[in-house]
């Protein structure tokens, strides 16, 4: 894949009958193959950014969109969400509503998307097997989706998207219901997909996780892009620290009065503490 996967050009969006814009004057380019983390306080426009990229806003929600949002070379206003679904996948915060609600087995649920796209049955079976194995739910294939725990349901929702083999994955807090082990496993899967060239835009509140995984972080506040850059640079900005907080390693370093820039990952923190005579 070449060229940008996702481009926002002065994009502003307000939901129908909303008094103010949820996203204001956002200009952002995500190159193909990038893994970009998005964070920010509540109601800062992170989820709306995902809905705009998927085309659900304005196609599903109505409302007013100014500026341009271009995904994989096509402007969102010209492509329906259903058409877009073959190349863009969106994982919602609530996995309960992401399942179709019509299938009685986990493997059938994973097959739902590819079947909607008319993928031949043999190919569907292979995709289902691959997606379930990737997210670690192959042993749950025969279970009813409603019998799964929140974490298992989140993995199922992700498997359902992966089975459609999207080029661009939009993930709105993909591990909010998972335990630490499950979270690591999912991030490992995402790492593998990123390694194979999938573009990932991930909304996440755990700043340490973002700093470890993403080479680039976008911080939103009040519907605008507050900062955009490498985690080490972004989380050292005063404005970001005030509005979005900072990774725990940076807080520790600040408490220990280490000279800046503050470390944002575990390895950087270990090195910074060692340099300054700790341990």
């Amino acid at each position, binding site marked *: 894949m070449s060229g940008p996967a996702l481009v926002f050009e002065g994009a502003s969006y307000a939901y129908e009958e909303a008094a103010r814009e949820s996203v204001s004057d956002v200009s952002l380019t995500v190159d193909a193959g990038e893994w970009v983390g998005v964070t920010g306080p509540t109601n800062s426009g992170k989820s709306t950014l995902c809905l705009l990229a998927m085309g659900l806003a304005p196609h599903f929600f109505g409302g007013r969109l100014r500026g341009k949002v271009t995904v994989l070379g096509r402007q969102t206003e010209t492509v329906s969400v259903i058409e877009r679904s073959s190349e863009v996948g969106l994982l*919602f915060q609530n996995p309960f*509503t992401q399942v*179709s*609600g019509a*299938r009685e087995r986990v493997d059938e649920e994973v097959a739902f998307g590819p079947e909607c*796209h*008319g993928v031949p049955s043999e190919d569907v079976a292979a995709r289902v097997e691959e997606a379930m194995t990737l997210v670690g739910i192959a042993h749950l294939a025969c279970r009813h989706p409603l019998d799964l725990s929140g974490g298992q349901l989140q993995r199922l929702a992700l498997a359902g*998207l992966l089975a459609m083999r999207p080029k661009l994955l939009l993930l709105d807090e993909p591990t909010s219901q998972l335990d630490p082990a499950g979270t690591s496993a999912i991030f490992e899967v995402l790492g593998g997909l990123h390694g194979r060239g999938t573009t990932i835009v991930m909304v996440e509140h755990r700043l340490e996780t973002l700093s470890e995984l993403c080479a680039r972080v976008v911080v939103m506040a009040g519907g605008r892009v507050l900062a955009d850059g490498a985690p080490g640079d972004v989380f050292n900005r005063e404005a970001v620290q005030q509005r979005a907080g900072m990774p725990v390693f940076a807080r520790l370093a600040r408490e220990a009065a280490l000279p800046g820039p503050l470390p944002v990952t575990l390895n950087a923190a270990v090195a910074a503490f060692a340099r300054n005579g700790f341990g």
Partner: protein
Amino acid sequence: MAGGLSLYAEGHSLLHRAHPLTKGVLTLSAIALAFTAPSATWVAGVLAVLLVLVAFAGVIRRLLAVAVAILLPITVLLFVVQGFANASNRTVVFGLGPIVYYREGLAFAAFAALRIACLVCATFLFSFTTRPADISEALMQRGLSPRMGYVLQSALQIIPQTLEMAGRIQDAQRARGLETEGSLRRRARAYLPLMLPLVLSSLVATQERAMALEVRGFGLPVKRIARYAFRDTTPQHVLRWALALAVPAAIVARVVGWR
């Protein structure tokens, strides 16, 4: 957690393996014939055939459980009410002072109970041997639109999903100190704070699910690929047609004087 409304019992009998449409036609025809037949003997014949099929499918224990729970109270009630109070009661079977039990009511109750037994037996035979997903899949393979197929499938899931949601809301409210157990009055009062969040969550969930379906490509105008093939044979075709024709034939026979 809830796990769907399916009553399907795993099995490998001929009935389990039969085409869902064959089983559907068999069920509907058996019910229609039981309610068309003019005498208890004929209805008992239909019931006997159904019971043989139930035994053949290996679900007799499950059916007995259903019979005790559903059929027994209805049958007892029918025999009591009809035996004592049927409008055509004339011939006394026994009497205890002012309480008199009549033959006509007894016969009517037996006839009605047999018909209801056929209805229950046929319905549960179908439910025990057919996965709900197979019904909509079979119908979609016969031309039902995928949208209608989805409606059919999701309708069977909506009750357990709502129960699941209600359970979560109730747990959250209990954690905040709401009394949900105890006297009938207390439990009734606990329903009020459950209903509003349940209705609102259901509306939000419906909107989110509609979005999620679009995101997964539901409604794309592509040729639908069958998920799996059902085994359909010439004898099953013949049986379906024979059963389907038996019903209008029985109705015509009744009209022209089958007694």
